[in-house]
């Protein structure tokens, strides 16, 4: 699975509701941890991430997958 594909899955999960990084990780048990790191970096580089008041991640409303 490519990092971009995993980043898209992460984006979809965060679009559904805010999550901690740990909650996100638990939703992706089939993905190698190193690919997770790469995908997370890709999502950051898209400037796609925001936070709620509890520090959980959510998707900026204007962001979509590339």
């Amino acid at each position, binding site marked *: 699975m490519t990092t971009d594909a995993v980043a898209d899955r992460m984006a979809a999960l965060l679009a559904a509701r805010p999550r*901690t990084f*740990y909650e996100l*990780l638990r939703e992706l048990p089939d993905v*190698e*941890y*190193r690919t997770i*790191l790469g995908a997370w970096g890709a999502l950051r580089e898209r400037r796609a991430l925001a936070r709620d008041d*509890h*520090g959980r991640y959510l998707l900026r409303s204007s962001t979509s997958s590339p």
Partner: protein
Amino acid sequence: MSRPSFRDVLARLDHDGALLRLPKEVDARHLSALTVKADRPVLFERVRGFDLRVAGGLFWNRKRFAAALGWPESELGTRFAAGARAGIEPETVRDAPAQEVVQTGRDVDLTELPIPLLAEKDGGPYISAGVVIARGDRGLNAGCYRLMYRTRDETGIDLVTVSDLRRIYEARLAQNEPLAISVSIGVHPIETLAAAYKAPPGVSELAIAGGLHGAPVPLVACRTVDLPAIADAEIVLEGHLLPIGWTEDEGPFGEFAGMYGDLKHNPVFNVSAITRRRDAVFQLLQMPWENAWLGAAATEAQVWNVLRTAGVDVVDVAVTEGSACRWSVVASIRKRAGGGKNALMAILALPDTKHALVVDEDVDIHDATQVEWARTFRVQADKDVIIVEGAQAKHVDPSVRPWELAKGQLPMTAKMGIDATIPEGIPPAFYDRIRHVWLDDVKLEHYQ
């Protein structure tokens, strides 16, 4: 190099049966939990998807911390004080194991490091065991700062708390210039200990580390920034703190006090090079106790110093683990009349100490039952407890209600001291401990 490296410490612990080697492949997701569950420091020899090994849990409790340093458990404070006074400046070397592999530019990829997620509410995976070196107007500064993984060449760095690095960064930021730093990961525990110590202005943490070793810390010039790094580190990150100020999200993070720090806004570290040993070991510093114990030796050294300055005849000093190894202190003394209260006032004058308990020399302060015995039978709360209101505090303590403070307002706390020495006027004979008969004459093994 005349002093041991991080891997020499691992080899010594392994030789002594004090290191758990796990040869079976582990998922990096599980590094944190396995480190917590292990009864010894752990060396993960195979981590799925990564070429590097991982070591963690070296400083998890007093016994492990002392073993990692190679010091007796009871001498953390005294050894630290003596070594820090000695001070040996670092030396520069040309050939460095930390530069056996050099990756710069587009080859920089932090995802090659098995950076673990440590706690459930953490804002992401964290590099928690880095010794950060920067150059300020007073020379080289070394400190321990957490780095939150962001991208393959970026991390966050927590610079909210007042520190030397924050002061140096502010000076560069005022000129809109980046600040070069190096981050040495997997160094001898003495170097991590010295870096975690808030040295007085003008005192080099690297020289303190040299004093503690009795030999200079070897440094090597970085490849992409005008700075040194620790030459026999397992891994070194080089780069710059960008001149963007406190703008990017960082945290939450499970901190040394055992609770989460809030989501913060912090600068970003842009990594221009990763250098490492060919078979590098990534060090995982597990929260809260590994960070807490790093402060223990310096706190105990401070208590020894302040008690001696106050003319107290000190026998032993120990921080308590539950107080994050710095906010509660127990000391035993040879008391003169009123000496218990004098000792309490001296200890409570230290900025971090919130609670202090003083006992007589017949009490083993490393035995919680003995300390509780003294507190129970030698204390009258109306006479032997002192409370000081309105003293300096830290935001990390929820009991000071930091959320109620106005922006920029510093918290205050009430400090408490308990004099559990034998009260003046009570003959010590009332405290004679029972001693069982024929203890020195009978051996259990003769009957087994």
